[in-house]
């Protein structure tokens, strides 16, 4: 302990879970992409780089993250601003920034920067948190949310807001404030519906509540996803044998709807296995959060792992038809380097927070 560089900070449970998820992910991606090796290989590179990054990130002392959190948030916002001004437009949204051969979705960084910054801002505040602190926190959350939302990327914006609010909640936001906010949200919902949401977003929500109204239009995705999962049965149709996937009835198989591919080809047992790994990973994070050395670490682990969990359950609920369709990848499985990188970074931070036991006087 006196010579920190002689120790490698490493959590075998998290490492093993992520290793399994990544291997399975590559496997599923192979089938989901109709056996496109170039996609799988690219993803494989991201996975390898991701593991290296995660291990590197786990090494520094949590204090460093705490001290850098402000800078990190400003850097993330700057990068987002650059993207907004100069980034290439893909599907009507400016989200990407190019770093060498990799293009990076700059909003991914905010998913990390917001909860870490808020954890730093709130960890030494007395309970209950004061109104001034709540308002500052909410302002930060809202600004970040709004910038990403305007890209427009509702999915990521919601996750960013979620990550901030989770930290706020964990740090001891009073219940009366929570209740008041919920009432306010309900009152303002018509305003959100009519002014803030884009027509296609309204359409998605409308079809969610009545999917059979337009089977070939907006609800095609969710109907085909259900058919894919349902037709998989208990044991699935077999690797590469899913007709919904292989004949392209299922949309977005490599990204948002990759869970439907797993359901179709590996059946209920495959789904059970996958969800068990996620559950194991989350329980480990929960343990690390409870046993972390200080409040800052607890808040960061809790914030990051619950953000990851929110990301996971939103995707799952969406593809099985429990939530409207929002663009949200399945963590560690879906194609996409940016989200994979930010996930590995997040878990690197979680491991760092969870494994550094040096007691610091507060």
């Amino acid at each position: 302990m006196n010579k920190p560089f002689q120790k490698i900070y490493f959590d075998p449970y998290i490492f093993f879970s992520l290793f399994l998820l990544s291997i399975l992910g590559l496997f599923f991606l192979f089938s989901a992409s109709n056996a496109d090796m170039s996609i799988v290989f690219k993803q494989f590179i991201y996975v390898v780089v991701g593991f290296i990054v995660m291990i590197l990130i786990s090494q520094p002392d949590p204090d460093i993250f705490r001290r850098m959190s402000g800078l990190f948030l400003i850097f993330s916002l700057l990068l987002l601003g650059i993207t907004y001004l100069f980034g290439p437009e893909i599907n009507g949204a400016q989200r990407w920034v190019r770093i060498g051969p990799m293009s990076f979705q700059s909003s991914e960084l905010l998913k990390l920067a917001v909860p870490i910054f808020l954890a730093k801002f709130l960890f030494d505040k007395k309970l209950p948190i004061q109104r001034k602190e709540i308002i500052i926190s909410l302002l930060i959350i809202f600004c970040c949310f709004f910038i990403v939302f305007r890209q427009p990327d509702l999915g990521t914006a919601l996750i960013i807001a979620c990550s901030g609010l989770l930290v706020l909640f964990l740090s001891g936001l009073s219940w009366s404030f929570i209740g008041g906010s919920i009432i306010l949200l309900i009152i303002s919902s018509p305003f959100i519906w009519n002014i803030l949401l884009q027509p296609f977003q309204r359409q998605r929500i409308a079809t969610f509540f009545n999917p059979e109204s337009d089977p070939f239009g907006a609800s095609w995705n969710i109907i085909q996803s259900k058919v894919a999962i349902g037709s998989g049965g208990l044991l699935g149709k077999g690797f590469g044998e899913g007709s919904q996937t292989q004949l392209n009835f299922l949309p977005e198989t490599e990204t948002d709807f990759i869970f439907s591919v797993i359901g179709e080809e590996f059946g209920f047992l495959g789904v059970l296995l996958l969800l068990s790994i996620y559950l194991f990973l989350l329980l480990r994070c929960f343990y690390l959060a409870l046993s972390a050395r200080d409040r800052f670490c607890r808040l960061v682990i809790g914030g990051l792992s619950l953000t990851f969990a929110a990301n996971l359950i939103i995707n799952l609920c969406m593809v099985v038809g429990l939530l409207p369709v929002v663009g949200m990848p399945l963590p560690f499985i879906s194609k996409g380097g940016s989200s994979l990188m930010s996930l590995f970074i997040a878990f690197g931070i979680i491991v760092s927070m969870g494994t550094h036991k040096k007691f610091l006087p507060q």
Partner: protein
Amino acid sequence: MIFEERQIEKNNFSSRATLLFGFIILVLIAVLIKVFSLQVSGYSDYQLAALKNKNYAVPVQSLRGEIFDRKGRALVKNEPTFDLITRPNLILDIDSFLEEIGPVIFLSQADKLKYKKLQKEKAFVNKELVLKKDLSAEEIARFNVRSFNFQNAFIAKRYRRISDYPLIFSHVLGYTSRTDDDYQSMPEIPRSHWKDAELSYAHGLIKGRTGLEQIYNDHLSGKHGQRVYEMNAKGQFVQPLSFFEPVKGSDLFTNLDIEAQKSAAKYLGDRKGAVVAIDLESGGINVLYSSPAYSINKLSNGMNEIEFQDLINDPDKPFFNRAIQGRYPPASTIKPAIGMYGLSKNIVNWDFEMKDPGFFTLPETGRVFRGWRKGGHGKVDMHKAFLVSSNTYFFSLAYQADIQELANHLSSLGFGQKVCLDCFDEDQAFIPTPEWKYSTMNEGWVKGDTVNLGIGQGYLVTTPMQLANYASLLATKGKFLEPSIVILGSQRKSKKIWQDNGFDNSDWSKMHTALLGVIESDYGTARSIRDLKEFKVAGKSGTAELVSLDSKEAYQEVRTSELLRDHSIIIAFGPMPNPRYAVSVVIENGESGGAVAGPVAIEVLKSLINE
């Protein structure tokens, strides 16, 4: 104090984190339950939905059964022709493709335009499209030599429904034409897939519209097969999955006789009329001919609109099947029926004699009903009344009849009802009654109406089919044969017999002797046909007046207008004394029955008997 505060914070964090992680676990369980309900409870539904998504079944057209005459000679068959078929998905540039194939296959400008239009509509489906039907041998040879240049086209066999006797059998066989309700026969194939049907006929999906083709459509149709393709979400065929062969329709074996039908057509010539002949052993219809006719080959294989309109507008009405739809007064051919009535009701007997002055005066009004021969036939009994066709005798007999009873009697002989078991759109013609006359003409039935009925004039109308059925009943001494075109075998209903206490076997023998005399004796009205044959024939001729006339002068006037001339009618059966065939002939505006319709009946009997 510091420690205490941290403990509060820690407890606060723990409970809140537990709450959130607990919530996440609950949601994961909810997802798992939902997946379970999709994959285990809803499995069969979703499996079916997934199959529906990817399986694209198209019907494979079955061939229709063929139709044969009683000797097993083909009446309608499926004849192969060769079509040039293209694969639109492999044609990148239609114009250059058409230009390339131009020197090989002759294409009119209209052909090209039609093809381009269809190509556009169908191009999204990986499917075949006919470029030209019925290629000539020369075109086939030219294409085969160059086929390696055309990976996107090939020649395939397509059938056409062809009869070697398209005119003489047109009404009885009927024609087929394109149909768009075949999808009902295979509900497992969605209606929208039928446009991609694999066709066996050049004319597409077809269905019998008239005649035997219609009546026996289900029997002839067979069962379409199907080919199932795997299809992707873009609607492209990926690969064929399975194939169920079509089942060819059953052949139809009929009682028709090509030679006899040919005779009927030959001797009727271009006159309008109809011939029906019935086999007395089986009740089978050997001849069912109506003139003028039309070509079923043209109609079944795509007749152009002008030709079709010409047929429809033809004043001779070639589509009209006179044999089963033509309504003609039976004229003197009804006399045996009236005689049967008189005998069975004891109004007359064979020995009863009366004087025939050439006319009958109705006692009530003094109205005069004339015979066909001025001066009459002298003393006549029933036998002679049949031979010379005395009108006066039957006027007088009918005068004593009760019209309701007489109508019932005519009905018992098959008049006023459909008699053929499997004729397409048969007319039931008509027996007049007082109620009918009152309700349609608002006039009461008068005795004169009954008197007119006695010689088959007036309101009574019959079809040639009913006359042939009546002739066969006379020939078999009362058997109802229930005529049918197709050999039905065990499907036939039990045979009924016409019976009456007042009309016994000796009456039947005397009736046969009298009807034999009509043709074979020196006094018979139809003796002119006696020497046309080697066997003996019994029968009764008739001349149906279209205009009721009271004087010979007026008659001469009418003769000059062809369409007002009398119809010539005969019923006959032979060879006597053991008749095997019965026949009826009606020739419109043919005048004198025996001399005009008679030879046709004899020639038809000759071909049936001599075969």
